[in-house]
């Protein structure tokens, strides 16, 4: 999937960005949590300081109440001057404007026996002017029976004791919701009245609403509420009543003075809770205790509280996302421009060049690609010149190939005048010139030689070497060497011409057209197949000699057998057995044998060759041929009608060279053995043959090379040994006989041999005919 450079680089970038994103996200999460914690602390501090203010107020209110109680006590104890008392009261309220009003109230009939109620009450009227209200002494109000009076007087038990009333609605005077703090007025350890200071509840709310712990964070209060749904509760926890609340889900007025249990979200452990869930919304409660068992609880919606942090987080995320998107896109564009596009361009050009189009390359940027393009350009020019040269070589090669092919005999049948055998050969060369070849010719009147060979290596050097070897074999085989010796000489000469370390595998057969005898020699070549008359083709098991051209003193073994009429010999090169099909299988020897046997009914050897070729083609299909496919088929068709009947004759032709003596007498011994000649005749033949052979090799050619042909014939009760050479005319019989009765000291060393021949033979005669010396020696059996 990510095989191209482009995709790999992109992948890496995306991965890096992803890692950075994750790292940053982790940091942001931690940062956010810490920030939230800090914010909470901050809120908490703000609420604390606010509570301090309220505490201060309450203290002031209570202090005022105590001062009023002192004034009340003085009034009671002294001359009871109202104007003086009023002045003192006014002074207190003038100094402190946070309370709505307040006063001193006496128990019934305690100041004046005739007057049930006695009080001094001052309040701020609508214009903010302190005014005394005398209406409270009337019967309608009857302050002794008011809740606040009862509540306070029942709580205060000694001097300076302060107590708080429940919140109540006062119709008289200020006409508002309020709560009152009061102090006992004592005289002679007896309560004579109380002082009161009123605190308007709306004022508390106002204070709370004005609370701004942090700029732009929140302020509480209906109407001007900047934080939606935040609310607060002020309560007396000790006496379990609600002083004031602005819960948006409850009837707040009805709650005043009621138990805290009426608030659904409230519980004793609220202080320890990080947040409460109320009407499907999360709130963070801030719980602060105030003086006198009072408690202030402020609930702020969690989402609103951390809105700025969350918003900031969102902005951050969005920014990261955009950066994460923009960077790969930018990189992709730049990558395309500076790397991928030039590569594609070069690829395009390379394709065009490979199609043979003439293309000029123009890339200026980036510098690396400009250099690459220049290299491309010079490479193209090189390729062009190389191609031109190669074309020239190719045309020369094809000429070489046709010369090579035409050097092989290709007219079939090649010897129509010799009906005793038929031969067919074909070579299908691989693409280049190769090293396979075949050849066949008569090496003397009776002996027909055919051979198939494979020069190691390919190409022109192998082809040249093959031509040399082919010519060399042709020349040497005409010189009359014994079959065994022939290949030793050929090998020696091949070694001499072989400076490049080539070698040749070769299979040859030398067929005696008169007798059907055949000598095979295998020099490292594939084993041939033989079909005996009407049998099946079988691989021969010839002794494999060393390849030609390896060691110049190599010895060779030949295999002699006899062919019967109808026998076929199939020889080939490894181009057949090593032909390869699409799956890489080899054609192999088994397939070859099977193919031949499938078509064993074919008489015409040309058709046999065609059937093998077809089989190979069917096997290899479209796989190109990698080696020459060469085969040579030899068939013994009919017996030689010209040969002398009732007689047996063997001929041996060799160069007239002393070193051939051993092969000569070996041959002679074999003939003796074959014909079952007795020891006497064999011995005579041996002695005579040696003498004549030596004479010819020593004297006939006077140091030049020449041959000696020996024919031994058996007719009825005679054995005829005939020597033939083309040397100088010489009749050995004319040599005078040595005196074999002379004293030994006088006897000559020469002349004994021919004398012995004359002694041993029954008939000896000499003839000079067609520039040949012919000596015939006849033995009677």
């Amino acid at each position, binding site marked *: 999937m990510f095989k191209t450079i482009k995709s790999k680089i992109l992948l890496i970038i995306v991965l890096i960005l992803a890692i950075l994103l994750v790292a940053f996200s982790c940091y942001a999460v931690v940062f956010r949590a810490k920030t939230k914690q800090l914010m909470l602390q901050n809120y908490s501090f703000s609420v604390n300081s606010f509570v301090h203010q309220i505490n201060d107020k309450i203290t002031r209110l209570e202090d005022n109440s105590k001062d009023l109680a002192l004034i009340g006590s003085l009034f009671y104890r002294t001359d009871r001057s109202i104007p003086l008392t009023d002045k003192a009261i006014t002074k207190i309220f003038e100094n402190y404007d946070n309370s709505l009003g307040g006063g001193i109230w006496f128990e019934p009939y305690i100041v004046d026996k005739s007057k049930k109620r006695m009080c001094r009450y001052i309040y701020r009227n609508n214009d903010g002017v302190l005014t005394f209200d005398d209406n409270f002494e009337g019967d309608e109000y009857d302050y002794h029976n008011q809740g606040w009076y009862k509540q306070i007087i029942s709580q205060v038990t000694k001097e300076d004791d302060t107590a708080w009333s429940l919140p109540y609605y006062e119709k008289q005077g200020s006409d508002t919701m309020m709560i009152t703090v009061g102090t006992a007025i004592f005289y002679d350890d007896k309560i004579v009245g109380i002082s009161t200071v009123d605190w308007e509840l709306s004022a508390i709310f106002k204070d709370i609403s004005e609370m701004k712990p942090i700029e732009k964070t929140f302020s509480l209060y209906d109407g001007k509420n900047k934080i939606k749904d935040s609310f607060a509760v002020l309560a007396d926890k000790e006496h379990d009543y609600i002083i004031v609340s602005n819960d948006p889900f409850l009837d707040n007025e009805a709650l005043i003075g009621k138990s805290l249990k009426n608030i659904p979200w409230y519980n004793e452990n609220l202080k320890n809770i990080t947040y409460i869930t109320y009407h499907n919304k999360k709130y963070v409660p801030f719980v602060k205790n105030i003086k006198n068992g009072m408690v202030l609880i402020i609930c702020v919606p969690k989402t609103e509280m951390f809105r700025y942090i969350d918003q900031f987080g969102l902005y951050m995320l969005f920014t990261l996302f955009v950066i994460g998107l923009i960077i790969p896109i930018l990189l992709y564009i730049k990558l395309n421009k500076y790397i991928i596009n030039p590569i594609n361009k070069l690829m395009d050009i390379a394709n065009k060049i490979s199609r043979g189009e003439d293309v000029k390359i123009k890339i200026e940027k980036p510098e690396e690609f400009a250099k690459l393009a220049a290299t491309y350009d010079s490479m193209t020019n090189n390729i062009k010149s190389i191609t031109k040269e190669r074309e020239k070589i190719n045309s020369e090669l094809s000429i070489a190939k046709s010369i090579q092919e035409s050097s092989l005999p290709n007219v079939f049948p090649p010897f129509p005048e010799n009906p005793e055998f038929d031969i067919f050969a074909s070579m299908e060369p691989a693409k280049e010139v190769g090293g396979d070849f075949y050849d066949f010719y008569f090496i003397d009147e009776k002996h027909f030689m055919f051979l198939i060979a494979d020069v190691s290596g390919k190409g022109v050097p192998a082809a040249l070497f093959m031509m040399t070897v082919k010519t060399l074999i042709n020349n040497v085989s005409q010189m009359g060497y014994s079959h065994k010796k022939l290949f030793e000489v050929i090998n020696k000469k091949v070694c001499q011409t072989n400076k490049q370390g080539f070698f040749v595998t070769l299979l040859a057969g030398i067929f005696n057209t008169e007798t059907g005898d055949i000598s095979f020699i295998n020099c490292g070549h594939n084993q041939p197949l033989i079909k005996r008359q009407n049998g099946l083709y079988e691989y021969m098991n010839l002794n494999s000699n060393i390849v030609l051209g390896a060691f110049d003193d190599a010895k060779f073994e030949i295999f002699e057998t006899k062919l019967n009429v109808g026998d076929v010999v199939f020889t080939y090169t490894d181009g057949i057995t090593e032909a390869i099909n699409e799956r890489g299988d080899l054609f192999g020897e088994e397939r070859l044998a099977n193919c031949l046997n499938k078509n064993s009914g074919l008489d015409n050897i040309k058709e046999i060759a065609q059937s093998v070729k077809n089989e190979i083609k069917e096997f290899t299909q479209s796989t190109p041929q990698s080696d020459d496919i060469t085969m040579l088929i030899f068939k013994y068709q009919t017996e030689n009608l010209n040969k002398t009947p009732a007689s047996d004759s063997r001929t041996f032709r060799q160069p007239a060279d002393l070193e051939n003596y051993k092969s000569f007498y070996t041959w002679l011994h074999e003939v003796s053995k074959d014909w079952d000649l007795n020891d006497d005749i064999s011995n005579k033949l041996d002695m005579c043959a040696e003498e004549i052979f030596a004479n010819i090799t020593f004297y006939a050619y006077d140091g030049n090379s020449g041959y000696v042909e020996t024919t031994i014939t058996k007719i009825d009760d005679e054995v005829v040994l005939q020597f033939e050479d083309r040397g100088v005319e010489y009749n050995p019989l004319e040599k005078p006989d040595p005196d074999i009765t002379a004293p030994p000291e006088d006897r000559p060393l020469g002349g*004994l041999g021919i004398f012995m021949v004359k002694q041993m033979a029954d008939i000896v005669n000499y003839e000079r005919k067609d520039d040949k010396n012919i000596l015939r020696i006849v033995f009677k059996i």
Partner: protein
Amino acid sequence: MEIKIKHNGISGLIVNAGGRLDLDSAVEYGTKIKDAIEDSDEPIKELVLDFGEISFISSFGLKIILELYKQMNGQNGVLKLRNVSEQIKNSFKMVGFNQFLIFE
């Protein structure tokens, strides 16, 4: 051809050889024996050729025997042939060598 030449006493030589004494081997046979005669510190008075393993003799072999005879004769020595087969004796007879050769 394998040729073994042994001293027999101070002035005697015994030659053992096997195979064909012919064109191929006769010269070597003769040369080795002549060398041995010449190399001897004492003049050789008796040369014995053991023919027990010789299967064939040709005219070239006969020529060498004649040469050896002449040499021994020249230095007042004796040439003796030992274990000669009938067939080879016939060959000697054919060229009249039986007249002077001593067969043991």
